[in-house]
């Protein structure tokens, strides 16, 4: 276990250096003359985070935007990368898949999450039931990839199946299916993995929101003769609209950036690539950083409306407060 020593030392040094830096900032801020103390505090407290975010996010984002208009050797090539993206069949398949992902994953996750949250509301053992569906949220997408490869496992017809789904298919008299190989439906089978992960997230948020809907309203609707569906549709859903928006937004953004699932399950082959995966492939495997950057830029433009919307909601809420 001699490798442990060196690694432990590195971690220890990093933490010590960090503590020293923070200590230094605190010392300077504390000892500053009264006249500049407030200003210095603001600068000292904000600067580390601000510098890291400027260098790590703002600068690269700007840089990438320029990179998107260059070719493999770094020469400006106008909008060639975008032309490539919107004309090449493989690149078009990537865009098409991304659209399918961002429509289906938020929708299905929210529907399943909401249904489950409603069904188990006030049930016995509610917390344990929640934990079962919530569990995949904690599993890495790489782990999820392995789990689902096992589920989708394929053996030729006539041989004992090792994947659950194919075993069920054979038991029902159907032929086993190569779930990850046959385009275009293989994208759907990858999407199921993401839905499996995100449903738990939607479920806990929506469950908390449902418990926040005033009981009196539900009771009143019931007394007025509304059946359970009407109660749900006309009282519960309007009551949790804010939470629904948050859930849909968060899952949409996570889905647009989905990478690991595709990477580990098909590596983007068999027509399953999505923007985030193709961007990695182009930039780090195919030696086309310009194309990678162009894809990243498109990804950002897709996310932008959601950011603007959320920023506006945020501002409104702060004004209310």
């Amino acid at each position, binding site marked *: 276990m001699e490798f442990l020593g060196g690694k432990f030392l590195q971690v220890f040094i990093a933490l010590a250096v960090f503590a020293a830096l923070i200590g230094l900032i605190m010392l300077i801020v504390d000892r500053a003359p009264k006249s500049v103390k407030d200003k210095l505090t603001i600068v000292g407290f904000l600067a580390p985070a601000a510098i890291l975010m400027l260098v790590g996010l703002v600068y690269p984002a700007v840089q990438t935007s320029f990179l998107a208009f260059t070719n493999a050797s770094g020469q400006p090539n106008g909008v060639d990368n975008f032309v490539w993206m919107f004309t090449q069949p493989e690149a078009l398949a990537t865009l098409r898949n991304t659209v399918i992902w961002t429509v289906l994953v938020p929708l299905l996750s929210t529907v399943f999450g909401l249904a489950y949250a409603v069904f188990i509301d*006030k049930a016995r053992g509610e917390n344990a039931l929640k934990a079962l569906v919530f569990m995949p949220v904690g599993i890495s997408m790489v782990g999820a990839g392995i789990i689902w490869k096992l*589920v989708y496992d394929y053996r030729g017809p006539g041989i004992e199946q090792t994947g659950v789904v194919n075993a069920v298919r054979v038991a029902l008299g159907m032929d086993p299916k190569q779930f990850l190989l046959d385009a275009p439906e293989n994208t759907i089978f990858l999407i199921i993995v993401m839905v499996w992960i995100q449903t738990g997230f939607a479920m806990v948020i929506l469950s908390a929101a449902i418990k926040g809907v005033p009981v009196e309203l539900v009771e009143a609707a019931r007394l007025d003769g509304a059946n359970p569906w009407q109660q749900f549709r006309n009282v519960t859903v309007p009551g949790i609209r804010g939470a629904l928006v*948050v859930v849909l937004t968060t899952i949409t953004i996570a889905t647009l950036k989905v990478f690991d699932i595709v990477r580990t399950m098909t590596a983007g082959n068999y027509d399953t690539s999505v923007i985030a995966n193709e961007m990695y492939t182009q930039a780090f495997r195919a030696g086309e950083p310009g194309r990678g950057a162009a894809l990243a830029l498109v990804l950002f433009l897709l996310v932008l409306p959601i950011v603007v919307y959320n*920023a506006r909601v945020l501002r409104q809420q702060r004004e209310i407060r």
Partner: protein
Amino acid sequence: MTVMPAPDEAANSSRTQSRKDKGRPATPEDSAPIMRRVKTKLTSRWATAAAVIIATIWTVPTFGLLVSSIRPAAKQVGPRSDGWWNFFADWDFTFKHYVDVTAAAGSQSANLSQYFVNSLAIVIPVTVFVLVLASMAAYIFAWGNFRGREASFIFVFALQIIPLQMALIPLLSLFTQVLKLPPGSYAQLWIAHTMFGLPLGIFLLHNFISEIPGEVIEAAKVDGAGHTTIFWRIILPLSVPALASLAIFQFLWVWNDLLVALVFSGGTADVAPITQRLAEISGTRGNRDFLNPAAAFVSIIVPLAVFLGLQRFFVRGLLAGGLKG
């Protein structure tokens, strides 16, 4: 949604409680016509059935992984292999795969214990860095007094949503060419993860810290406390629930990351985290496929334990950030 302030959980639970009390006994159902009672019962029975089905579908894949990981190699691959559910017919199990993936030596070995340590060595400093830096910034955004505070906070919020993919290429060249960070060290990963974690961290903590009553801070100021004292003695102790949930977030996020690791680790056993190794060994189809379930389970055991153990904090963190923002 300001219905659900994260700091006072008490109000929340009491609301749930009162709802339960009112909801259960003495409902109009008791006096309602029989038809309606039957109908309600039926809907709830269907609902229960649907819930059971969802819970089963969501649990079976992970359960299958767990069972597969303890089945002998011959049962998993090769001519005599069959599905993991046959385990319940033969009860043939072994823990050899777990020993193989963690402890076995040699180039063939998955060598997971090394990568496991790497994951810890990456996650722990990053979590500390993000917690400290984000809470400092969040404090200023909540209680500092300067022009452009609102605008800059919204800007930070928006940063949350820059796709990581956009940042990777320039950042890599910055690290290797300008800063000359050695490729085979943790430094690149620590810095990159900290950068990417800050916007969400600041956002979550800000929501919580800004809810701390202003009188507390005013009182401390009157007593002569400076910003540093207020921050360390008042803000941080009061923010423990939010800090805990952010810590879990950050821990899970970094532990489960693959993309940042692929770009910045260089892929050596000295630095690369367990997810990267897992992606490697599961990506290569071979005669050692039977080790994958055990390897996957080793990698998910830590996040799963952290996650299920501290679920409550995690949910609270989601709500503090989510429902209000």
